[in-house]
């Protein structure tokens, strides 16, 4: 592998121009400098990773490349030719295709209709559809990109929807494919398949830019990698000459512990006992089909699974706010006492009063009120607490003081309790939520996607606090679609698929491959007892001390 991308300065060799070359790209949104003097060179026929924390400016840079924004300064060269990308049409004509993190597909259109949209030949649809059908068949054979052209998008799995996006770009004859966080929504098996597709595309001479925050993916598939931090390009290196640790340090600007350091668990008495929990939503869809598990004091139970398999319903039900109209059955015991599942005492406030803290999956809609100040958000859910109230009125001064203290404990930046939640970064928003719940010292903490959209530095911090809570003898239920997170935090891992727990594993005695199979619904033959709704006994495994991860 040539190390051409490492050389800085000097004109590029015109004989072998770069697929993409950016020179001094800058872009500001008001006072925020999203991109500052960005230089980037991507060699033809390689997979180039771009890595950086949230808000580092990766997406802005790619949006500039795809004609969504005009840069304030700087030059773009595609295949050695200077080009002004005024709109997406120009980018497409220049051979640039983009697969967005949130797919740009029309849900009730067929695959074929989505493919031709904007790339039709002539005013009538039929000839375009016929042509696209042929091209699709050819692409499917060439790159293992099989999708049924007549299926509508809402009938497709997320992985297949992503293939449609890739096919869209290829149908427009893209030579340079940009993928923005492509694996965030995929199972490990789907992600592997995607990587094989990308390898195939590379073999055909296509250039691929992969934007991600997952170090593992960068190491696994890219040829070279550029690191962004706070709007600047801080490094461009060959992948085989760097390490995850170095990349993480470059991203954050300081040393980062990638794996959580934790002592072996000291589990005590069961805190939460869930038996045969079932939930049918108001559309009659069975979301939970008999879920049973225990969590003991001083233990973190991780629930792994692709999103949409019942995790959300499970968390909402435990937290006391199941979807309206849902029919619920089963039982939940907390510290040996039966919890009210459906009656007047099944609400979130009662659950909190029973010692259940909850960091909801979607912090922007459930965890915070985005337009309210940080100090107000710190009180939500606990606003009836005596220390926040004085007679009929709320004691705002007390709440504010408490908020300041919590923000300091959790290193929320900027440390300004009067700032609206909206104005904090994703990581700091999450810290506010986590601070609110953990500082109440709950017996059981429900945590949904604690680090979704959170930068590496804050991830490290939040993980540490969750482990501290466990070490203080509390129970934690962790739901995450990030397998790495599940594996590094959990003491036990349960995999959920289609509303059922498919099996349980110990994190140090399993592999992502094995968990991936369970997440895809491949039946777990070793744990028949789980299927019957009785959680397996774990006493025998817990006696063996585990290696700290």
């Amino acid at each position, binding site marked *: 592998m040539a190390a051409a991308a490492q050389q800085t300065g000097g004109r590029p060799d015109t004989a072998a121009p770069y697929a993409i070359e950016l020179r001094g790209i800058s872009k500001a949104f008001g006072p925020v400098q999203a991109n500052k003097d960005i230089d980037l060179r991507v060699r033809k026929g390689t997979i180039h990773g771009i890595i950086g924390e949230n808000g580092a400016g990766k997406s802005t840079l790619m949006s500039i490349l795809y004609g969504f924004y005009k840069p304030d300064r700087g030059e773009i060269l595609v295949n050695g030719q200077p080009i002004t990308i005024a709109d997406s049409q120009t980018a497409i004509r220049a051979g640039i295709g983009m697969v967005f993190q949130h797919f740009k*597909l*029309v849900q009730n*259109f067929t695959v074929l209709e989505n493919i031709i949209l904007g790339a039709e030949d002539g005013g009538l649809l039929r000839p375009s559809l016929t042509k696209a059908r042929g091209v699709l068949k050819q692409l499917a054979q060439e790159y293992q990109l099989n999708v049924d052209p007549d299926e509508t998008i809402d009938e497709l799995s997320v992985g297949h929807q992503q293939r449609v996006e890739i096919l869209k770009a290829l149908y427009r004859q893209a030579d340079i494919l940009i993928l923005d966080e492509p694996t965030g929504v995929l199972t490990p098996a789907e992600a592997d398949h995607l990587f094989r597709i990308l390898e195939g595309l590379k073999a055909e001479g296509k250039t691929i830019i992969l934007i991600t925050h997952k170090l593992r993916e960068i190491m696994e598939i890219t040829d070279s990698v550029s690191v962004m931090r706070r709007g600047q390009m801080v490094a461009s290196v060959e992948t085989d000459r760097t390490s995850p640790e170095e990349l993480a340090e470059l991203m954050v600007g300081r040393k980062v512990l990638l794996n959580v350091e934790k002592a072996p668990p000291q589990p005590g008495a069961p805190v939460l006992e869930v038996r045969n929990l079932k939930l049918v939503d108001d559309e009659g869809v069975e979301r939970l089909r008999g879920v049973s598990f225990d969590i003991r004091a001083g233990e973190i139970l991780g629930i792994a699974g692709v999103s949409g398999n019942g995790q959300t319903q499970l968390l909402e039900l435990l937290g006391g706010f199941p979807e309206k109209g849902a029919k619920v059955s089963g039982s939940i015991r907390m510290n040996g006492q039966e919890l009210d599942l459906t009656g007047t005492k099944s609400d979130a406030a009662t659950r909190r009063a029973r010692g259940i803290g909850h960091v909801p999956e979607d912090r922007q809609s459930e965890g915070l009120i985005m337009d309210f100040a940080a100090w107000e958000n710190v009180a939500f859910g606990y606003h009836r607490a005596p220390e926040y109230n004085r007679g009929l009125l709320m004691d705002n001064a007390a709440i504010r003081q408490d908020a300041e203290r919590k923000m300091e404990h959790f290193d929320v930046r900027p440390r300004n309790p009067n700032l609206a939640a909206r104005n904090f970064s994703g990581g700091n928003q999450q810290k506010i939520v986590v601070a609110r719940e953990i500082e109440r010292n709950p017996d059981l903490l429900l945590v949904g996607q604690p680090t979704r959209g959170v930068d590496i530095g804050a991830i490290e911090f939040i993980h540490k606090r969750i482990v501290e809570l466990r070490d203080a003898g509390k129970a934690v239920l962790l739901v995450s679609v990030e397998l790495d997170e599940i594996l590094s935090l959990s003491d036990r891992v349960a995999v959920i698929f289609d509303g059922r727990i498919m099996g349980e594993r110990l994190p140090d005695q399993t592999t992502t491959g094995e968990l991936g199979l369970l997440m895809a619904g491949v039946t777990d033959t070793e744990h028949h007892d789980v299927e019957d709704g009785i959680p397996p006994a774990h006493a025998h495994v817990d006696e063996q001390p585990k290696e700290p991860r």
Partner: protein
Amino acid sequence: MDFATIIQILDSAVRLMTPLLLACLAGLYSERSGVFDIGLEGKMLMAAFTSASVAFVTGSAWLGLLAGIAGSMALSLIHGLASITFRGNQLISGVAINFLASGMTVLLGIKIFGLGGRTPALTDGGRFNEVTLPFADALRDVPFLGPIYSELISGHTILVYVAFALVPLTWWVLFRTRFGLRLRAVGENPASVDTAGVSVTRLRFAAIALAGILCGLAGAYLATGLSAGFVKEMTAGRGFIALAALIFAKWRPWSALFATFLFGLLEAIANRYPNLDLGIVTVPSMFMNALPYILTVIILAGFVGRAIPPRAGGEPYVKER
């Protein structure tokens, strides 16, 4: 009820459904593109006024029709400017258009004609005449089919035939052409159109321009086809009924035909039997006249199945980062 009466009621239903159908198709184009249009009423009213005025002054129904389209288009452009260009709230813009039309037509009417907001009655030439289809008279005496052809199918103004022809045309445009594909896409997920390099703004303006033309036809038909001149508030909620029919039809052209026919039929029955005698009780005329509006309420309250509007409907498109 004999056969001749049924034919007469159906004939009347066809006349009465025509403005509803045109307005409903107008709403269909607009809402399929993701722009809610509760200003159908105002646009029809404006078109009725401008067409009646110009038809009176020039003595030409055709010039009146063009004026109707122009009047309606002007309001469409205001709606587009407010809700597409400046990303304002589509419902508020629509309400404003309804008020504007309601006030402007009366104001201009009094100022120009001095008849308390009416326009002078239109004479021949200023109105659209009934078209007698070939052989209508010759076939009149053929049993059963004769009256159907010569009374029900023949003998409407040209705008009625245009309205009916627009149903298959709209279906074809929507589902068989590139424009239709993009139109449907922009109403479902404008980002998909934008990232494909197609202008969301231009598509939406095209859609509301079509809505403007169709509301123009509807208004002109009201003033120069169905009646002979403009009367204040003559649309009488037809724009809102068309909106209800659009929801009932789930934003589909053929269903729109049936939905508007249902409303037309109710109105025709109410006109024919002001006091419907059911033997035991006599249904009062007020109730009969209220039937289309009652049906509207029932439909809008969602009693007629779940209607899923275009997903991006009502939301101005803002490029995301």
